[in-house]
């Protein structure tokens, strides 16, 4: 580990003589910096997407796993009695931490997105909802359903399993896709930098020939290109990462606008994660350029 770190630092410190032997090439330099910057910018968003999807999956998983809903549909005159019976039954059910009937205002709020504000809920045959908070181990839904059928015939238990699992699976897939995006971005960066390095090597064929004639080894020649492209990728990725983080920071706040997309971002220590992108881009550039350089040098001989 320490050896690798030393090698990395010596690469960045570089061999100024080897570096000078190859003339600066403006086009490939700009192309590499731009590519690394753009890819880093996209990588920040892919990382944010992946983390946000992870948080969403965790939140849905935690919240929905600990709660269930009991829906009581009964004639208006029996509603209160059945609700009270259901509450009593739930209070004696193992695995139920708490149970309470939602107030009319709470039920109105739930329906508001579909019916608009000021819904006269009292005059409508709306079922009564009971929120059930579970202990960590949860309750036995099959047993509870059997008891409810016997004592509160109008009650329907929804333990959220039906729609919780697809949601968590979707969030998990989204997190996976975020990871795939980061890998694809890394591969695309490697491909672009390889092409730029090959262009630079081809443009400097005469320089390489002269260096060979005076006894320079392939590693010496490659080092000049590798160091240059690694530093360019590091610089471009650093700029792209900072730009990406600023863009994420400027997104509307989740608690103000609501919704998933506005929750795209980093929280707490996760703000440090994007700083991994520039060194990662440098490592990708190092590997891509070294591979391209050694291959080209062999082909040019």
């Amino acid at each position: 580990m320490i050896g690798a770190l030393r090698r990395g630092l010596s690469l960045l410190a570089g061999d100024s003589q080897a570096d000078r032997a190859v003339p600066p090439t403006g086009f490939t330099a700009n192309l590499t910096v731009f590519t690394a910057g753009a890819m880093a910018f996209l990588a920040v968003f892919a990382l944010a997407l992946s983390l946000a999807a992870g948080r969403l999956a965790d939140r849905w998983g935690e919240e929905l796993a600990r709660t269930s809903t009991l829906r009581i549909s009964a004639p208006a005159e029996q509603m209160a009695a059945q609700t009270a019976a259901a509450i009593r039954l739930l209070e004696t059910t193992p695995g139920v931490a708490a149970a309470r009937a939602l107030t009319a205002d709470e039920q109105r709020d739930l329906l508001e997105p579909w019916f608009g504000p000021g819904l006269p809920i009292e005059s409508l045959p709306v079922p009564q909802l009971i929120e059930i908070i579970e202990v960590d181990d949860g309750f036995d839904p099959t047993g509870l359903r059997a008891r409810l059928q016997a004592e509160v015939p109008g009650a329907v238990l929804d333990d959220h399993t039906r729609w919780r699992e697809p949601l968590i699976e979707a969030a998990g897939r989204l997190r996976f896709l975020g990871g795939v995006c980061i890998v694809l971005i890394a591969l695309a960066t490697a491909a672009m930098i390889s092409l730029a390095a090959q262009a630079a090597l081809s443009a400097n064929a005469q320089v390489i020939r002269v260096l060979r004639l005076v006894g320079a080894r392939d590693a010496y020649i490659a080092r000049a290109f590798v160091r240059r492209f690694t530093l360019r990728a590091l610089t471009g990725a650093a700029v792209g990462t900072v730009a990406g983080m600023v863009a994420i920071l400027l997104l509307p706040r989740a608690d103000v606008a609501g919704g998933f997309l506005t929750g795209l971002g980093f929280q707490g220590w996760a703000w440090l994660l994007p700083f991994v992108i520039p060194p990662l881009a440098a490592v990708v550039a190092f590997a891509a350029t070294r591979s391209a350089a050694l291959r080209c040098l062999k082909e040019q001989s």
Partner: protein
Amino acid sequence: MIELRNVAYSYGGAELFSDLSLSLTPGSFHFLTGPSGAGKTTLLKLCYGELTATSGDVLLFGEDKRQMTRDGVAMARRRIGVVHQDCQFLDHLPVAENIALPMTAAGRQSEVGDDLNDLMAWVGLTNQAAQLPPQLSGGERQRAALARAVITSPDVIIADEPTGNVDWEMSQRLLTLLVELNKMGKAVLIATHDLNLIRAAKAQVQARVLRLRNRKLQAAGADL
């Protein structure tokens, strides 16, 4: 140090020469002459490993060129100083850095110091040290190329028309440098059309003159 045994070389289906043997031993001094297009430059390239013989063996410091790794060839070239006909400079580097290039490529840049200044003074390029190669005249380029070829004090010096663009006085000066190095045990091989240079050298060292003609390498006549 460098040995060619029954070497043949073909290019584009045409055989440039065949069954050619040559041995550059420590302290040897060879001139290579012959008409234009006879293959002198090609023969030199075989000697410093830029080309590979079609058949026969080329030994660089005892190793068969065909069996050598790329790094092995690079290490062998560090022991061979070459003056190319077209000089082969890095045009973006100043003359001084071009001359020191074999040292820096070998990781010996810390050893480049007074020797470089002395060498540049010897070839009369002190005032051109900071100039770029394209700013030099033909003669200055050849002098710089010779300085680069000898800066590492190589075991073998190979020069392709090293005095083609320099005046008589400077050619004598360059010849003196090569003769002094030869007396130190370095092998020297020079391809040239300059008969005066050959005669001047023969007056100072035991030089062997070879003529590349009709695809064969022959000893030159007594007039040389």
